[in-house]
């Protein structure tokens, strides 16, 4: 499941096969891979200096017996537009961004970073007994930045650190709170863990490829996007997904948040080799590494505006989206960051890393600070405004909290619904039996707390 807003739209589009744009030529969508395989038999010419085996085309022959050593290859560079001081690195690229958009992104980040909302998430977990929430502090930039570059109806498969994406797309504070309280407005009706606002925490990477394939079949002008962490990239499904996306040419963006830790496992123990980016290259996928804390620049080039980007992540995401859609193939973005928060509310990360290291990252480099510095350098923002915004955000959160708390729980019938599209006979019988028992012993049950009370069953 995806963002509610985008999901509903995308699902409806999928079903109705509505097309946003006139369908482009089918040839673009179904590259000649299969046909080529049928029509072009592989032949090794007698005096060729390169390999023409089916499994490795265009490899030069060599008489030097040499193993390829990963450490001999240069690491993939990390793209950034502004540095940690909020200053544009390449002065020739004049920032060009609408103040409104920049401020919206900044506000979304501030809201996601609000300690009360974070605390509320923890509290709701303890209340529910589930006892585990995953938090996104320090990575607000990646989520908000990439969301800003995607089309509103792109299909997003997120994990649990992409609240910023949802917020950017218009998921309201009330909606966040309703999910945390599992009240009657919670879209999941209390059936999913807190903070899994619209998504289940599943092995989602191959699903995004499937969604991308569906979009491809539909000749849609949309793409699928999959967020995941560098820890997930050690799972088999990551590799299966990248391979099948590359071989079936699916328009999907893989956005990896490389935040340094998979729960407690530091990346150095997670993988050898040059990060997740090198894997993308290995699967034959266009790949870029970007500074995930770099939150804010747009630029014009050669006299006309190429992108209305506002940050490196955004710019890169836009460019990647372009490739995925126009060339109908996958693209991998590895966004580098540092997880300032603990993995989840049940994790104390100071058991495996020094507090001073975290404090240092917070102070030295942080997407919010970087963006604020940049906004201030444009004179679009001031310390006063910042103070005001933070107070306002806190107020809004508290209001949403109070509203969500008062709402009733989902109707009783939801106990039995949603296992199948239509409840099985067994579930129907159980529902009828519960009705009978409640009606027979009305004094024993208090159904006030549930939406529609007895009628809700």
């Amino acid at each position, binding site marked *: *499941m*995806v963002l*509610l807003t985008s*999901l*509903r739209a*995308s*699902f409806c*589009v*999928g*079903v109705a096969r509505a097309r946003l744009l006139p369908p482009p030529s089918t040839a673009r969508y*179904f590259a000649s891979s*299969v046909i080529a395989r*049928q029509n072009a038999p592989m032949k090794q010419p007698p005096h060729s200096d390169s390999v023409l085996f089916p499994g490795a085309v265009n490899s030069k022959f060599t008489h030097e017996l040499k193993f390829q050593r990963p450490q001999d290859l240069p690491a993939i560079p990390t793209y950034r537009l502004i540095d940690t001081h909020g200053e544009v690195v390449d002065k020739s690229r004049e920032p060009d961004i609408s103040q409104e958009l920049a401020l919206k992104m900044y506000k979304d980040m501030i809201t996601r970073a609000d300690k009360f909302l974070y605390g509320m998430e923890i509290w709701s977990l303890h209340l529910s007994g589930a006892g585990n929430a995953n938090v996104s502090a320090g990575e607000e930039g990646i989520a908000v930045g990439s969301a800003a570059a995607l089309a509103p109806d792109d*299909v997003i*498969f997120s994990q649990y650190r992409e609240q910023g994406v949802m917020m950017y797309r218009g998921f309201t504070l009330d909606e966040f709170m309703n999910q945390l309280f599992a009240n009657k407005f*919670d*879209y*999941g*009706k209390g*059936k*999913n863990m807190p903070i*899994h606002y*619209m998504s*289940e925490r*599943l*092995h*989602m*990477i*191959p*699903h*995004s*490829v*499937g*969604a*991308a*394939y*569906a*979009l491809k*079949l539909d000749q849609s002008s949309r793409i*699928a996007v999959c967020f995941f962490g560098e820890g997930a990239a050690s799972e*088999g*499904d990551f590799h*299966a*997904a990248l*391979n*099948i996306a590359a*071989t*079936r040419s*699916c328009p999907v963006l893989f956005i990896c948040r490389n935040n340094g830790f998979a729960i407690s496992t530091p990346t150095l123990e997670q993988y050898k080799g040059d990060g997740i980016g090198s894997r993308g290259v290995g699967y034959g996928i266009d790949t870029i590494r970007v500074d995930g804390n770099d939150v804010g620049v747009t630029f014009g080039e050669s006299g006309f505006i190429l992108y209305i980007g506002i940050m490196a992540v955004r710019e890169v995401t836009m460019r990647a989206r372009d490739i995925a859609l126009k060339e109908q193939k996958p693209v991998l973005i590895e966004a580098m960051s540092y997880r300032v928060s603990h993995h989840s509310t049940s994790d104390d990360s100071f058991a495996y890393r020094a507090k001073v290291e975290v404090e240092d990252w917070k102070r030295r480099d942080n997407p919010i600070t970087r963006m604020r510095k940049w906004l201030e350098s444009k004179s679009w923002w001031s310390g006063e405004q910042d103070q005001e915004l933070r107070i306002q955000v806190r107020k809004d959160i508290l209001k949403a909290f109070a509203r969500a708390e008062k709402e009733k729980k989902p109707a009783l019938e*939801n106990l039995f*619904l*949603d*296992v*199948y*599209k239509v409840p*099985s*006979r*067994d579930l129907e019988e159980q529902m009828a039996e519960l009705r009978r028992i409640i009606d027979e012993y009305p004094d024993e049950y208090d159904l006030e707390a549930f939406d529609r009370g007895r009628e809700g069953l």
Partner: protein
Amino acid sequence: MFAARNLLSRAAGGSLRKPVVNVPRVTAFQSLKIQQKNYSNGGAKDYTVREALNEALAEELERDEKVLIMGEEVAQYNGAYKVTKGLLDRFGEKRVIDSPITEHGFAGLGVGAALAGLNPVVEFMTWNFAVCLSSNFADAPTDTDQDQMQAIDQIINSGAKTHYMSGGIQPCSITFRGPNGFAAGVAAQHSQDYSAWYGSIPGLKVVTPWSAEDAKGLLKAAIRDPNPIVVLENELLYGQAFPMSEEAQKSDFVLPIGKAKIERVGKDVTLVALSRCVGQALTAAETLKKRHGVEAEVINLRSIKPLDVETIAKSVKKTNHLIAIESGFPSFGVASEILALSMEYMFDFLDAPAQRITGAEVPTPYAIGLEQLSFPDEDLMVKKTEQLLRL
């Protein structure tokens, strides 16, 4: 009485002993022909299970453009078992899709496509991989069952649970199909029956066709159903021919999921079976009739989940004796479930403890003699019924 699940019972009481009398065997096909005389009103035609599945897929691809098929070798190679024969030519590479050898990948891709509104049919070359075919290839897939286990993750964690966990917002209409259970001489890693595995998962529906009509009607129903469905076929049945009624030959023929079928009416004992065991049970029933004049009622489960308890209970009410037959492992199996249900719903009608006949509690051996010992056959079914009825 040795429990029928014990290898000891097979070895000591059955296969290792010389046959006392040679009973003329009636094959399942012959017995079905006898059974189906009642609708041999002209239009019936013989179909192999393979042909029935192929026809079902073709008709559903034709009916709904959201349906697509993906899996290993399904397109150019026409399917490892030729179930998808001719579909690539007819429906094109957009809808009949060859996948790399990555179960996790294409099962996940299928789920993703289903979440996005398509209606995919994902074929597993086998639910437990048949080496006998893949060894024909120079670059045979590395067929470890780990691949299968990866697909299970997609089927269960994503396919079966998404609708529930999303509060009903996100349906997942997908069909997973392929041959299940033991085949012939493919050893332990490729001879597993997954009926009980998938049958225990809320949110999934699981069907196990036996005849050609089952195969066509259930597969079509699975594709049309808005829930994730697991279709467990049987490799040993693919080439077997069954009469297909005129009605079943039509393109609008579907069978209800969750309804069992009484394949043979009887009054003395109820034999509940699934998949290939249905045919064996019918053969055993004919033998029992010849030997003892006993009329066994044979129920073809057709669907593991939901399970048609009502049909079984009705039958047991009449016969007062119940034997559940499957070729899966004995512990926590489909037969175990039926016996548990018999305690809950049929206790008062049983004249003797219900019995189960299952595969043996042993990883399936390779050698043919050992393999035969590991699975129930017609003789064992006859013997166990005789013991139950004290014949």
